């Protein structure tokens, strides 16, 4: 690819563009101020100050205290740290409750734990991807070490009732972890007085770089570090700080605060227009997820009888549109997305899913282009398919 300027990037749940302000905030620490924040001299102190500032910005975004913010290397590390810590600090307890639609960062860790003899329950979801709190209640008992549930789902955008689930966990003395990687920056979050003990976020989903994450740990929540070594992060996470990325994430948190209303208004309006337009112009559409409680930027739609990879490639070849799909071919795993399978979708729909996930950098003109080219692509691929001609 020669240049990225003519790209229509609607795959923001996969990763996001770096905000120019974030690059600006990072640059001094990649050039001039390369000191180690632990060093005693004033040169290292510049880096230390940047970390203090970023920690405050992130705490503000989450409605948390700066001491409750631990910098990690990614969302996955935050997830692993929280769940493993809970199992170590609550040794008598041998059960974990999570959902069937978690990201691999939680799901595969849980499978590993199961392999090692722990009991894990996976809450099923209904055809719109919703969990049932009554069912959750029945699966939590005094043997449960931790309940882990995503705040918002990366594929279908569903927002889960985490506050209520956390109360169910606490009723049995279990800890509660929330993977908020997709929620932070897209919906308002306030952890003050919440039932959440641990929360994970990842920089690259909110216009900060890849390879930086945060684990929020509620004050006084029992904790066992995952990386053991130096005294960084108050002894909670060893390793010399990724200063530039931390500074970038801090700036991204400030920007997320400033743009929160825009997510809820302009981004949501673009998503809704895209959804309505595709539903009207492509026969037999199926919109996945809970339309009552969904991220404002996410649209997951099945084009029945055709296969996702073909759709994505044609979208790209026709107008440089970058989206994603839950089809088996795109994942390279030979199995379609576990989230769409958990919804109980039939096989005629399952392979033809496309996810459009927007950000504040998208424009109305881009939505127009997607709406112009998609119906023709769907039609011509259906003409090729032995299963359906619509």
């Amino acid at each position, binding site marked *: 690819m020669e240049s990225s300027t003519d790209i229509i990037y609607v795959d923001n749940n996969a990763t996001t563009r770096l905000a120019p302000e974030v690059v600006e905030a990072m640059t001094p620490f990649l050039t001039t101020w390369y000191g180690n924040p632990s060093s005693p001299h004033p040169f290292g102190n510049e880096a230390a100050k940047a970390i203090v500032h970023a920690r405050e910005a992130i705490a503000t975004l989450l409605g948390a205290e700066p001491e409750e913010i631990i910098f990690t290397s990614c969302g996955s590390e935050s997830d692993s740290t929280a769940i493993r810590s809970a199992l170590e600090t609550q040794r008598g307890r041998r059960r974990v409750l999570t959902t069937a639609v978690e990201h691999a960062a939680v799901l595969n860790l849980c499978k590993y734990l199961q392999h090692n003899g722990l009991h894990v329950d996976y809450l099923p979801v209904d055809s719109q991807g919703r969990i049932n709190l009554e069912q959750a209640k029945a699966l939590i008992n005094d043997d449960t070490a931790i309940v882990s549930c995503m705040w918002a789902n990366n594929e279908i955008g569903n927002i889960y009732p985490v506050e209520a689930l956390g109360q169910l966990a606490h009723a049995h003395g279990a800890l509660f972890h929330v993977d908020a990687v997709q929620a932070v920056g897209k919906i308002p979050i306030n952890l003050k007085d919440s039932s959440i003990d641990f929360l994970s976020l990842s920089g690259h989903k909110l216009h900060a770089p890849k390879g930086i994450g945060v684990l929020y740990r509620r004050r006084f929540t029992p904790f066992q570090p995952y990386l053991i070594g130096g005294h960084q992060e108050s002894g909670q996470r060893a390793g010399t700080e990724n200063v530039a990325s931390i500074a970038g994430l801090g700036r991204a948190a400030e920007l997320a605060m400033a743009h929160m209303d825009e997510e809820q208004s302009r981004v949501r309006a673009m998503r809704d227009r895209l959804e309505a337009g595709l539903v009207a112009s492509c026969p037999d559409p199926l919109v996945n997820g809970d339309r009552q409680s969904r991220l404002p930027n996410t649209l997951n739609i099945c084009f029945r009888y055709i296969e996702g990879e073909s759709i994505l490639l044609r979208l790209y070849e026709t107008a440089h549109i970058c989206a994603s799909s839950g089809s088996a071919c795109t994942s390279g795993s030979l199995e379609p997305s576990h989230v769409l399978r958990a919804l109980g979708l039939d096989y005629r729909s399952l392979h033809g899913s496309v996810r459009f996930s927007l950000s504040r950098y998208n424009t109305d003109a881009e939505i127009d282009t997607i709406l112009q080219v998609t119906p023709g692509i769907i039609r011509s691929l259906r003409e090729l398919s*032995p299963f359906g001609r619509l």
Partner: protein
Amino acid sequence: MWNYTEKVMDYFLHPRNIGELPDADGVGEVGNIVCGDAMKLFVKLAEDKKTIAEAKFQTFGCASAIASASALTEMLIGKTLEEASKLTNQDIADFLGELPEEKMHCSVMGMEAFQAALVDMHKRHPELDVPIIVEETGENRIVCQCFSVTEGKIREVIQKNHLTTVEQVTHYTKAGGGCGGCKDDIQAILDDVLGKAKAAKEAASTERPACQLTTLQRIALIQETFDNIIRPGLKADGGDAELVDVNGDQVTVRLAGRCAACPSAIQTLKHWVEAKLREKVSGAITVVEAK
């Protein structure tokens, strides 16, 4: 995303020979919607009843499946049946320049469709001398339950493509790519084929025809019966069910809702779901519950 050659992209973006041939002499259908790729190939002979005059296709699948199918039709047209029957999946890959190894199963699917079309042609025109390709070992045992891959298919692909590892077998046939439970089995087959390679000539070939076909209509009918009769029936009882897989005559079902916890669930399955499917689709169907 995959790295496709320019030729694959060309055949994907501008596929040749799309559609159906109502007066075809042979029609081959392979794959199924459960696995995520399927192909229907129509072949029509010239006046001489030896040369392929027309070939058309329909494909459900990714870019490489569409390109492989289209390439195959181009390769078939103008060839005699005898010449065409000598084509291999590697020829399709070569025609397209190259396929990513993980996508080689698309070229294998093309050849399966052609073999199936020959079997169908033989049925329609018993008087013609159709060169049906007989599997060397003819074993129809299903090795990979997730993707319904037979032992015969695995052996054939190992031999024709000189495969040496289980991972390669997965890239070419999908076998082992789901739950992975059959990987030891695939290894055993590999060991056997590789060990036998030298003494291959001795192995006598049996007479059984090529592949047992999963017809697309059949799967569609099962799905339809499921959606229109079985699920509404179960729902009326506070339950529900999901169609997990169709594997020859075996239909795998997962129960949800009240059914899942109900001790007579297995009975419900056996008696009611099976009866409905037998009535609507085929008397040979058996129903099993997904683990």
